[in-house]
């Protein structure tokens, strides 16, 4: 009896926690999305009007596609930057490895809003970068002034530390001596990377990618402060439904769509990646 109690507690408590704080709110969103709001009042009446709006009004589709592109580009950049950074920490970090990794988390010590506003100060029309350019008599860089590029820079800045940390942990778990084995058996350093290092860290890389991609999809602050007039992203538009416009039911429907898209992407990736081929040994013997 006692032996049964421990796993029940260990699994039961987090499950209860997740159900109460994650599944229930999600269900309430689902319910809210098939109701409607009228002048700041919720009307409990089943209808699919919200989804109809999302499917027919072009702006929402634009926001969604723009968000998907933005999240893809930002996640790719983050992953591409994080790999060499994490690898360098592993190779050359020595006993400062942990410190270096933690160093990446220093910006987290301030709030997200603060970080974005600081970036706005750096990239904006009278920001440090353009200020210096103009003081030198050059034209300011318009491409980083309230544009999607500025948003992307902000998002890369926000999520790079997470991707670096995840890939770093993956590399830390990876037995470097397998590279020696590959080289001994005839693989050049580049080939050893393709044959061994990359596949055995693919799982970690995908987790890093996802941990960047999914929050980017629903990003609100970076586009709002950096994105300018054509920079509205899906998450930002969704936040507006719950704020200024008071159209909570529509916002809820947008949330459901976002959730569905995220789940769909995870499923596609899971189908494409054979865990066995990433050295995942969680299946045990047999």
């Amino acid at each position, binding site marked *: 009896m006692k032996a049964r109690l421990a796993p029940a507690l260990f699994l039961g408590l987090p499950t209860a926690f997740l159900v109460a704080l994650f599944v229930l709110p999600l269900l309430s969103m689902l319910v809210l999305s098939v109701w409607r709001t009228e002048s700041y009042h919720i009307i409990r009446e089943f209808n699919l009007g919200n989804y109809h709006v999302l499917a027919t009004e072009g702006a929402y589709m634009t926001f969604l596609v723009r968000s998907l592109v933005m999240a893809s580009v930002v996640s790719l950049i983050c992953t591409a930057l994080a790999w060499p950074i994490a690898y360098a920490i592993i190779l050359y970090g020595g006993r400062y490895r942990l410190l270096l990794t933690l160093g990446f988390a220093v910006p987290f010590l301030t709030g997200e809003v603060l970080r974005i506003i600081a970036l706005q100060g750096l990239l904006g029309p009278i920001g440090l970068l353009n200020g210096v350019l103009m003081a030198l008599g050059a034209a300011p860089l318009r491409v980083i002034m309230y544009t999607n590029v500025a948003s992307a820079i902000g998002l890369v800045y926000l999520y790079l530390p997470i991707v670096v940390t995840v890939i770093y942990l993956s590399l830390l778990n990876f*037995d470097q*001596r*397998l590279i*020696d*084995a*590959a*080289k*001994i*058996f*005839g*693989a*050049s*350093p580049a*080939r*050893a990377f393709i*044959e*061994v290092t990359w*596949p*055995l860290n693919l799982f970690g890389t995908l987790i890093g990618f996802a941990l960047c991609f999914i929050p980017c999809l629903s990003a609100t602050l970076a586009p709002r402060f950096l994105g300018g007039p054509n920079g509205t992203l899906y998450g930002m538009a969704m936040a507006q439904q719950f704020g200024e416009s008071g159209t909570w039911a529509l916002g809820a429907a947008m949330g459901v769509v976002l959730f569905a898209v995220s789940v769909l992407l995870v499923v596609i990736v899971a189908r494409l990646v054979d865990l*066995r*081929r*990433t*050295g995942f*040994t969680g299946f045990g*013997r*047999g």
Partner: protein
Amino acid sequence: MAYITLDGVSKQYGSVWAVDRVTMAIEKHEFVSLLGPSGSGKTTLLRIIAGLETPTQGRVLIDGEDVTHLPPHRRGVAMVFQEFLLFPHRTVYENLAFPLRMLKLPKGEIEERVEWVLGILALRGLEKRYPNQLSGGQQQRVALGRGLVGRPKVLLLDEPLANLDRELRQEMEVEIRKHQTALGIPFIYVTHNQEEALSMSDRIAVVRGGRIEDFAARTDIYDRPKTAFIAQFVGRSNRFEGLAAAAGDTTTLRGEGIVIEAPHHPGLPAGSRAAAYVKNEKIRLKPATPGDAPAANALAATIRHVILRGAYAEYVLGWAGGEIVASRPRSEAEFSAGTDVVAFWDKSDVDLFSATGEP
């Protein structure tokens, strides 16, 4: 010209010389062991031959070619690692095919060669398994197969049997030697286990402090140790200390309560401190009889413990100067604990070394 030559190879880490001016030549059909305690530099030496480390000084030649600065993948060597280091994301078949794919062999030949290795190592039926679905012994065979499949110029083995249990280890020793003979390529085998080195090698290089203490046929290493370190490290020996005195073809060592006669040793001036080593199995026993006169190469002792090792018994003997061990075949007369005996040995079985400079 030898098939593999190490010419004054040294490797420095910080201020430590892990490998110190090693020169050795290995022939094409040889099985050579690098035998030494942990930290002696034997693995570093192997990694230098593999190309995983670059020597600070000296040259490495394989098959007449200077490979000192060639990366490992262009040396045509193969290696079996202590931790196996199979690719965990590849099946047994794919692990075995890896060196062949790197050689860019045609598909048909890859299949043929992998089949051959599966056959000689009794791995058929396991092709589709992943390494974590194999037992330790099976993983070891795959690691060995991956080493053999590419027909390398030399196979380097880094304590490949250290993680296996005793029975499996002895089985694999026979098998490894069998494949070496069949393939006719040199195997260089790193181990700290003298039994493994003795059972498989043609020649053994005893490594100590980054240097080669002696590199000789296994029987020479065992029967005629060149240094006190080898006498102590290879085989199981009893050590006696005393002062040397030479007379004719005999050097005599006088210690407390014991006189040992050994073949003449030119390097021991009269009155210098010396140490004599007698292997456990060279010590014979006879029952003590009243009136035994003290003689050279003999001592009166009492049996303290008898340790049964199956085919032979180890007698732990107490004598005036401490304890010694004699191991005798079970076919001989057996003694029980508490018996008074005389332990004796032949003059030719004594290995004498200078003990000056020892603490």
